[in-house]
């Protein structure tokens, strides 16, 4: 996916010098990453490298100890998941973050319910909207009135994805979106990423699958022990280069140069 991405302007999102510590552990150490409109940036690294923590700061789940976040060049203050949502940042968590006891539309609209007269939630309207977006994302989906605990892994994933794309997201964060999926469903997620990209959204993608990342991402940022090893355009590096960045914590190409 080496189409030309204009990186001359202001990035859609820029995270600058972000640090956060839990107890004595420096989980993220002065990391800077950015994403431009229509770009997919992959975050790679071992478990515990700090990828998910970094991304949760952008999603409002954690508050950084230091550093700043800029959206379209404007400094923003993200203190809660609700703040992130008002900045059109949507997150698909690895755990999917679904309330298993509620149905698909209740999950899709959780925290942003459609209310009618007297402030009462309008279930029919929400189900109708859910049916519309599902018809686009996953036309086979028909289990609208059962709790999501009764859905398959792929169906649950499509509910989580629908929630991220329904509310006019500008920035989408995907934490291991394909980890629990079969081949066919993984393809569906890949197609969706390409579609969102073509609509000019900025996407942060976390995955362990280096091959998949080479296919889907425009740039990859590699982290190790909470620090950023480097950010490279995928066309400039090989899979082996990336692996050695992940494992050794240094970029062989840059070392050689």
């Amino acid at each position, binding site marked *: 996916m080496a189409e030309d991405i204009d990186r001359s302007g202001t990035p859609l999102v820029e995270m600058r010098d972000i640090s956060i510590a839990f107890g004595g552990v420096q989980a993220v150490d002065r990391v800077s990453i950015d994403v431009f409109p229509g770009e997919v940036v992959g975050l790679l690294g071992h478990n515990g490298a700090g990828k998910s923590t970094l991304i949760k700061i952008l999603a409002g789940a954690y508050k950084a100890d230091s550093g700043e976040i800029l959206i379209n060049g404007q400094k923003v203050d993200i203190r809660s998941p609700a703040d992130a949502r008002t900045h059109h940042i949507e997150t698909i968590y690895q755990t999917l*973050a679904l309330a298993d006891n509620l149905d698909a539309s209740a999950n899709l609209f959780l925290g942003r319910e459609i209310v009618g007269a007297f402030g009462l939630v309008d279930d029919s309207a929400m189900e109708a909207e859910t*049916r519309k977006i599902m018809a686009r994302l996953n036309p086979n989906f028909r289990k609208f009135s059962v709790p999501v605990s009764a859905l398959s892994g792929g169906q649950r994933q499509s509910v989580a994805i629908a929630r991220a794309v329904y509310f006019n997201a500008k920035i989408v964060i995907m934490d291991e979106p394909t980890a629990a999926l079969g081949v066919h469903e993984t393809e569906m997620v890949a197609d969706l990423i390409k579609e969102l990209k073509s609509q000019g959204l900025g996407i942060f993608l976390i995955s362990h699958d280096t091959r998949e990342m080479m296919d889907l991402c425009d740039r990859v940022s590699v982290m190790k022990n909470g620090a950023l090893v480097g950010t490279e355009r995928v066309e400039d590096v090989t899979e082996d280069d990336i692996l050695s960045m992940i494992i050794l914590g240094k970029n062989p190409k840059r070392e050689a140069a």
Partner: protein
Amino acid sequence: MTDTTGPHPGRSRSLFAQLELDLRLLGMIGAFAVICVLFNILTGGNFLTPRNLFNLTIQTVSVAIMATGMVFVIVTRHIDLAVGSLLATCSAVMAMTQTAWAVDLLGLPLGSPALAWIAILAGLLTGAVIGGFQGWLVGYLSIPAFIVTLGGLLVWRNVAWYLTNGQTIGPLNETFQLFGGINGTLGATWSWIFGILASVAAVLALFASRRAKLRHDFPVKPMWAEGAVAAIFVIAIMGFIAILNAYTIPARVLARQFEARGLAVPEGFTASYGLPISVLLLIAVAVVMTVIARKTRFGRYVFATGGNPDAAELSGINTRLLTVKVFALMGVLVGIAGLVASSRLTFHSNDIGTLDELRVIAAAVIGGTALAGGIGTIYGAILGALIMQSLQSGMAMVGVDAPLQNIVVGSVLVAAVLIDIIYRRRVGG
């Protein structure tokens, strides 16, 4: 994304499935019916009399009102062991307000109707504040609800003792006593009117929901099934009113009432108690709580938080504040239950509400509220309270020893949860 769909609308389904009735609800009604018939046989036909059913309903009200709030508490994965003690504190505040505090402070004469309303307000406020405070300890200071309310169980019982210096306070204000049951009933005519209005409202609600579904082209039940469900509702409501109206005021009570007005009872005159105001209160609480659970954002968040607290938080829900609200709502309901309980007795006593926490939790759990959180219904909790109460009074009527009564009730609680677990495993959710 492969998909195995459920029964396809339009394909022929069994008559029963087309009615789309709730199996769990049917099971509970079935259990209740079995209990009623069994005790009716054992008591030689004394259980299913209008008089006993009237008493059964007014005995159930207090616990049933609290059980609706306990559903929310348990659904959010908490517990409230302090409801019985808090009921005593609310009851003590109400009793003291109407017999001493408001009398001294505002100079109102004892027995004035205004005193009753001031007392009720004070009682509900007490419940809300104490409940909210316990919720704050749980939500913001992260003390487990079990510990907070276990402490509350001791604290509020004895706060009540201090408020009244351990005295029994009574008789309570006559206006206040209207909420207790037999001292405040609608009489036959108004009961019928209420029944008709309730039937109309139930049918309208059914068809409004059908219209909303049709507007979005969702599958709906066939018209005959909708009509059958409506008919069941109307028959149940009117049948309930008919039973209550069949309980007539005993001749000696009538004679006393007429005597008080200096009249004699006319030949062949009878009058019914009809619907007790306390039961009306329970119905109102049930409707409001059901609407809150199903149709408000607050209710949606209560269930979402119970199902997955992390997901709720990541969706921008303030789960700490939600905990405060849930416990405050529980407190208000405890206040209402305290009103009903003390006015039924016509006095406040120190031991009012003792062991109610266990009855309330049992009612919610028998009614299908899952202690793991996320699942529970308001109607289930009320039915659970009714089942518990009918077991208890049925055994008392048969003459079962008090210790054995408690042994049976305790065993039924455990058995009910076991059945629920098996049912959920079969049905899946």
